């Protein structure tokens, strides 16, 4: 088991943001965390990592910080970089907790190659485009070489080719026995690359959990996202597309946990 959460609950100013989430993610899987804005996806991942206070149990949060950093790498959504640090030393920051210093240089080179940022190695990170910086920060995440990766909207702001590349890379990492949990707004990408989707609804509860075809049903899309959608056959297999809600349909109903 790579990540185990039991009844994880986060309150902010008395409001429940993540509500009794229990989740087990086994090793070697690529899990997409989906849900509308404000459903608590980011908060759930932060709480799982132990970066914010939460009730309930998370096996990651229970670890001391330096051991947790060797087990799980975290890509925050904010692409913050304070100083004009060149790309290579920036990627190398991901190596700070690994005691094996000889692995540093190969890990950094491999991560930069995987994200196609090797040619940017001497450029100050503050001068990169948004998409280039996003790839550099994912390279930092990969350089950490952890068995578990949590990423908050890793493909937001990337061009289509790099969106595919990042998702395919995560899929490949899962195939090699690492575990990736990523929040993703693009349901088409999530349905295509993730073997399992966890859908969060308003109020911070898990509404559905399973293979994409079982999670992305028309009723649930209407209920949680207020949109339609279906899998369309294409030459490269079925592809999920979102569709506008049917014109006569009512506004999305408030989520009801008793009704999955």
């Amino acid at each position, binding site marked *: 088991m790579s990540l185990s959460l039991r009844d994880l609950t986060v309150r902010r100013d008395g409001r429940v943001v993540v509500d009794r989430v229990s989740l087990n993610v086994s090793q070697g899987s690529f899990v997409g965390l989906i849900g509308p804005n404000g459903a608590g996806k980011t908060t759930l991942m932060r709480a799982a990592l132990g970066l914010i206070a939460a009730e309930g149990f998370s096996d990651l949060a229970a670890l001391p910080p330096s051991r947790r950093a060797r087990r799980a790498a975290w890509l925050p959504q904010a692409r913050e970089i*304070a100083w004009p640090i060149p790309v290579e030393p920036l990627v190398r920051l991901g190596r*700070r907790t690994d005691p094996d210093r000889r692995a540093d240089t190969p890990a950094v080179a491999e991560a930069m190659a995987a994200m196609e940022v090797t040619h940017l190695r001497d450029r100050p990170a503050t001068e990169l485009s948004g998409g280039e910086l996003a790839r550099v920060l994912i390279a930092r995440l990969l350089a950490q070489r952890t068995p578990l990766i949590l990423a908050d909207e890793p493909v937001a702001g990337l061009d289509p080719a790099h969106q595919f590349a990042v998702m395919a890379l995560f899929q490949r990492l899962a195939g090699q026995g690492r575990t990736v949990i990523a929040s993703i707004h693009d349901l088409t990408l999530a349905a295509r690359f993730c073997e399992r989707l966890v859908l969060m609804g308003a109020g911070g509860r898990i509404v559905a959990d399973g293979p994409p075809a079982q999670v992305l049903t028309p009723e649930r899309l209407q209920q949680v996202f207020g949109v339609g959608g279906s899998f369309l056959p294409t030459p490269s297999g079925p592809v999920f597309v979102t569709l506008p809600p049917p014109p006569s349909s009512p506004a999305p109903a408030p989520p009801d946990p008793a009704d999955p």
Partner: protein
Amino acid sequence: MSRAPLLLSLAALVAVLALASLLIGPAGAGPVASLKALWGGEGPLGIVLREIRAPRAVLAVMLGVSLGLSGAALQGYLRNPLAEPGLIGISAAAALGAVIAIQAGVSTLGLGVPAAGLAGALGGVGLILLLAGRGGSGLGLILGGIAVSALAGALTALVLNLSPNPFAAYDIMFWTMGSLADRSWAHVLTALPLMGLGWAVLLRAGRDLDALSLGEEAAASMGVDLGALRLKIVLGAAAAVGAATAVAGAVGFVGLVVPHLLRGAVGAMPSRLLPAAALGGAALVLTADIAVRLVMPERDLKLGVMMALVGAPVFLHLIWRTQVGK
């Protein structure tokens, strides 16, 4: 990487400037005679060199290291190039302690004033840690620092306002301008242990500051204990800057300008900026302290005044260059 050559050239610069600081002064002896007098020379020149100029040069280095290092550490911690040691209110608190001592009639030449300055700095640290709250957020530290600065500034003004003795008010005014004149080995020995402690704490925070370049959340996920880091930065800067202010008064701009000037040369990585800014700060303070003796030898031009006169235009130039560069 260009790390070692840069640190070596900065160290060489500091050595040359320290030597120049030893050789320049109102006694007007030639360099050779001065150096001979320094190594065991008898008579007045030997005493001038060993008891007046040498501690002054050593204090200039210590002051510069403290201010440059604290400035670089605070900029790295707050991820803001405008941060400087004065921001967290320690220098204002140290100045308040010293001012109260001067008002109470303690001589500005002895160690009573530095001791009171250290007490003030200690009070300031306690207050800022109380105000900044728990956790490791940089914002709490800035707000706490502004509050401590404002309070200490107001109390200093109150002491001046209520001062029944115009001479004490005059002393206070000149003391707060910052100076290294007439300091002795006793001042060096008072400040050195605390400063050294501060330097050690700040230099060891370098790796955590590097990780913090990616933001507080990313740093925490990489194993940085943000609360412990903030405590290190506050205590390290407070020890270094508190001791510096206690023996030399308020000297601004060093902690702001030096990290700016050297950031590009070290590839912007905070851990590499720390030692460079320490040496750069020493070079700048030595230069300014030599300048106050050369520009107006007969008037007691204060170090803090000189630094502000030179620092403000340099700072404006930096801002102008940043704006043009965009």
